């Protein structure tokens, strides 16, 4: 599938061209299959969201009379499940921003000490981070939930922030260490000889040069916190402290199941991360593959 087969070298030209056209046609057909596979669930979200209320239980493949009513209901919080929608949206945003800020500061400070200052036993910290990275987060959820109770953080946004930071920081430390290798250590040394304190080296040399990695990790942490569900579901219980995904999943438990409102909510919730993803896609990939998978 990967490469159009280029048979033996002695093929006559017309034959070769026919083969290539055939290959091109096959690739096109394959693309159509991939498109359908990829887009069907996403089309389904849009289709259900565009159905006017009450018309969800139909056998249509296309909405009979598309309407934006559901979106209007969501935006104006016109349904009892959605009464705190913007408040919950704000909670999601708050958690996201706090996670980014804390992850970036904790992660960059640690990688600076390990990677640049080469503190003794720094490898212990790296290994701890690597270990955290490979342990599935959902496996830690039960004790984590209990411990948040001990810390007196139940139903508090900060418990979620703590969870997101815990699982985003290991990734940050790796990226920073990998990226930091490309910054000459001589810069740090020159600054030190001129009498800069480690704090100054960190702020004036390390951070500015790490900007691309910071963008990549920041985006990663923001999306992680925005998209994550399990911890937010377990740790936040009141309507006012909930985040959007938790509220969204609550719909599922209601008897009435207003599917069109739910899907409209889902779209409003999904737009920011998708936009951010596509906006920073190139930068993230470029920044990370730079030293990346090349030999």
């Amino acid at each position, binding site marked *: *599938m*990967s*490469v159009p087969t280029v*048979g033996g070298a002695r093929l006559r030209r017309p034959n070769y061209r026919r083969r290539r056209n055939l290959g091109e046609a096959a*690739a*096109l057909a394959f*693309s159509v299959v991939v*498109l359908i596979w*990829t887009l069907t*669930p*996403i*089309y*389904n979200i849009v289709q*259900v969201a565009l159905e006017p209320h009450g018309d969800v239980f*139909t056998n249509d*493949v296309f909405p009979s009379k598309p309407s934006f009513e559901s979106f209007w209901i969501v935006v104006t919080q016109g349904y009892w499940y959605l009464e705190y929608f913007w408040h919950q949206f704000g909670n999601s945003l708050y958690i996201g921003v706090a996670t980014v800020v804390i992850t970036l500061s*904790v*992660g960059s*400070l640690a990688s600076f*000490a390990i*990677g640049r*200052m080469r503190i003794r036993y720094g490898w212990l*910290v790296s290994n701890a981070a690597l*270990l955290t990275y*490979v*342990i*599935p987060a*959902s496996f830690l*959820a*039960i004790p*984590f*939930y*209990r*411990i948040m109770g001990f*810390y007196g953080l139940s139903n508090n946004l900060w418990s979620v922030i703590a969870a997101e930071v*815990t699982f*985003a920081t290991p*990734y940050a430390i*790796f990226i920073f260490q*990998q990226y930091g290798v490309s910054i000459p*250590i001589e810069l740090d040394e020159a600054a030190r000889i001129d009498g800069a304190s*480690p704090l100054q080296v*960190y702020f004036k040399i390390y951070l500015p040069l790490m900007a691309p990695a910071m963008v990549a990790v920041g985006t*990663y942490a923001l999306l*992680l916190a925005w998209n994550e569900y*399990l*911890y937010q579901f377990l740790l936040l219980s009141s309507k006012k402290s909930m985040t959007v*995904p938790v509220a969204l999943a609550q719909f599922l438990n209601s008897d009435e199941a207003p*599917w069109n409102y*739910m899907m409209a909510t*889902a779209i409003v919730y*999904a737009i920011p*991360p998708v936009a951010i993803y*596509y906006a920073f896609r190139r930068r993230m*990939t470029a920044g*990370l*593959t730079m030293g990346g*998978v*090349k*030999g």
Partner: protein
Amino acid sequence: MADVQVLRTAEAFAIPSDVKARRRPWRFGLQGSEFTWAIAFVIPYAALFLAFVAYPVLYGLWLGREPALYTELMSEPIYQRTVVNTILYLGIGVNLKMFGALLMSGFFMRRGWWVKGLLLIYVLPWAVPALPSFISIHWMLNGQWGLLNNALYNLFGVDGPGWLETSRWLALGSVIASHIWKWMPFWTVILLAGRMAIPQELYEAAEMDGATGVKRFTYVSFPLLANLYLVCTLLSTLFTLGDFNSVYFVSGGGPALSTHVLATLGIRDAFEIARPDLGVAVVMSALPLMIPLVILLMRKLHTTEVQL
């Protein structure tokens, strides 16, 4: 939370640090107050790790310390089915996904604007948050009102089955397909980056020696990608083991609790039937699989560092 967490990490891990040798500490080592500063810089992360990783892990081990819990689990039919599901989910899901990603990454090496355009659309499942997509798939597979059966009926006049309501195997298959739908694009992007890093000259040289078509793949691409592929598969196995969202939102463990995996059953036992110790035991029973995987992965990442 494997969710976005996965985001391009394999790439980050896959770095051959040829530069490592010339990395050295600040000249003359750390002096005087610098050492204090270094300690102060590490403390926030150390505190974070102790408070939110080490403590929960130890507390979890303590919660699941009773051997009686495990004998109780073993005799439970739900648990036995869950173990089978988890093995199938990992065995089929991960391998299909990774092999599919390998093929897709080859496809995306083609030239042409529409292939690039397709790639942009193809990564959409990964860019969209898990929750909306999985809820959508859940509704799409509804036997009576779902889009899939509507389409089957309108196109072919076939009455589709209730994908999630009737049979365990259909439901489990749907969950695996949803997982692949969501995560294959991510691994495709990783493997694509791996393929792009293979120098073009290698292919040219191989072509001179007569390696074209399939041979090109078996003698050039695959040997160079094998290590990356292995590391990605290991990572993906661990992430899939902890995948909560696909199962929870697509099948919800149903019909009749027959499609749970360890990650969802643990949460169910701990919070729905209020037996946290049992929930922890469910999760801990994955350790015999997890520990070797983790050791293997950490070694791979440390020693070989995926050379291309």
